[in-house]
């Protein structure tokens, strides 16, 4: 079973630059109308942490919710 993750976006820190969305291999992140990022497809997060690494505003946390390695 692959890893699964739960993405949490701290909206007050997010500036909506979309860097996270670009680096997300599963393309589960998107820009909302209000200029903040949102998780459009939470089921498909694989907890790779690319978004955490890439967010220049430290606005993203990923919790590993399933790890059967």
């Amino acid at each position, binding site marked *: 079973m692959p890893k699964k993750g739960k993405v949490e976006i701290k909206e*007050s820190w997010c500036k909506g*630059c979309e860097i996270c969305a670009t680096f997300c291999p599963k393309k589960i992140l998107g820009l909302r109308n209000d200029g903040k990022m949102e998780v459009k497809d939470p089921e498909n997060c694989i907890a790779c942490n690319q978004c955490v*690494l890439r967010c220049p*505003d430290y*606005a993203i946390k990923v919790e590993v919710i399933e790890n059967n390695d």
Partner: protein
Amino acid sequence: MEMEKYFRVDKLPHIWCPGCGHGSVMMSIVKGIDKMGWDPEKVTVVSGIGCSSRAPGYMNFNTLHTVHGRPIAFATGIKLANPELHVIVITGDGDGAAIGGNHLIHACRRNIGINVVLFNNQIYGMTSGQYSPMTPEGSMATTSPYGNIEPPFDLCELTRSAGANFVARGTVYHLPKLDSYIEKAFGKEGFSYVEAISQCPTYYGRRNKMKTPLEMLEWQKKNSIDIKKARDLDSEQLKGKIITGIFAERDDEEYTARYDQLIKSVQGGKE
């Protein structure tokens, strides 16, 4: 890594524009400090003036936001007055390569134990987009409305020649590598210089056909070339390229250690 241990989280979000790379470089520095296991009480972060120089305000150490171009001078006083401190300088391409260039080369020459991280976004961001000594040739800026005719400085070559113990250049795009350079720099006694190519979508990108942060990161990816590969290319082939990697790695004796020896010998001579 615990955010609260190293950041003043109540000061966040930081002032940098959406998509600015400086947040990534600041995190890279903090990760380096964490990897070194340094006591935050013994870490002093000094900056000059400009976008990059706002970083220390967010970092939970002894932090000093000085005047334009002179953070290395202040840092020299701090390190010499108390060599136990880990002294990091955060500067930019205006602060470090233009007004502060002289201090940079002399700190290299002394090989004093200061870790300089230069956030190179190729533009004066704080003053809204004038060309800097590290703006690529041909770039548009508010003060080069017809394209920049000045060649950019290669501070990695300069600091290597001037005697720094460690010199490297990384990019925000190749973030894990940048992390490793900063960690290596922090592990060195003596002077280190790490240049982090960062992106300024607001004042550089928009004027230079890279409207989004992503296009700027793409530019970093496309134009970067490893120093080992770069050795086989001539200057014409390297024009406009970002040479990344480790430029210098040596273990020459650090300045304050030499000064402590001087004190010992002077005081010993009195007996």
